């Protein structure tokens, strides 16, 4: 039976509360993982591990949180993603909302793509195919 958005959200919330030690009500769909919820690099891996268990899914490395973008000179110039970089990232993160980020693809703002909603979208595609 397909999972509803609410069911996924509830489990994602539990996952983030456990992984990041935040309160339930801090985990809103629009909250950013690093900015609002204080996640650091190792936490992203912790979140991946916990999601795999909670939803009984396999998350290949780099699929939920893409790697090897920022260290590719073709994708980054003067602290911003190039057109090639942006289109690569969009292709690899169909679960993220780029509407704000693509206005100003400053790499320091890239973390804002990682919202709770981003995780929900990703998990929805995994559990519901």
């Amino acid at each position, binding site marked *: 039976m397909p999972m509803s958005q609410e069911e996924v959200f509830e489990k994602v919330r539990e996952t983030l509360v*456990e*992984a990041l030690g935040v309160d339930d009500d801090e985990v809103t769909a629009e909250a950013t993982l690093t900015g609002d919820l204080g996640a650091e*690099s*190792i*936490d992203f*891996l*912790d979140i991946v*591990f916990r999601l*795999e*268990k909670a939803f009984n899914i396999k998350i290949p*490395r780099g699929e939920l949180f893409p*790697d090897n973008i920022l*260290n590719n000179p073709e994708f980054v110039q003067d602290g911003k993603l190039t057109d090639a970089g942006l289109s690569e990232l969009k292709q690899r993160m169909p679960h993220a909302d780029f509407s704000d980020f693509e206005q100003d693809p400053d790499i320091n703002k890239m973390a804002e793509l990682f919202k709770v909603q981003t995780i929900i979208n990703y998990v929805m595609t995994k559990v519901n195919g």
Partner: protein
Amino acid sequence: MRWIWIDRFIEFVPGRRAVAIKNISLAEEHVHDHWPAYPMHPASLMIEGMAQTAGILVGQARDFKEKVILAKITRAEFDGVALPGDQLTFQATVENLAAEAASTSGVVLKNGEPFGRVDLMFSHIDQNMAGMKFPEENFVFTGQFERLVAPLLEQDDG
């Protein structure tokens, strides 16, 4: 002084589970200052005890080739204090073991009774996503930790 906060492994199932004990003694210098009127084993060193138990478990799973570094204390809760004369038992279980990191859950017993919970994450730092380079020599597993677990592994071989 050696930075080892467990005395002995009593169980070791490679890649899955390890149990170590630590006897707290009034002869240990660290309790004298913590605190002079009421010596107790610091909580931070109980976390270290679990980190060593779980870290060796994670390290052995990759034949001590990875540099296993404590990256995150996901949870650390203790129900009271541990005093000289108490025996702590660290029960560590591998929850996840991936190329770049591992997570473990752990229960601490005091004199055989549940007393604390410590969940940890370890990074295999040579596999870090930022591509940072570290010295080739394995500065984590220099021999002292491997020797602790060797008797149990030999026992299994026999």
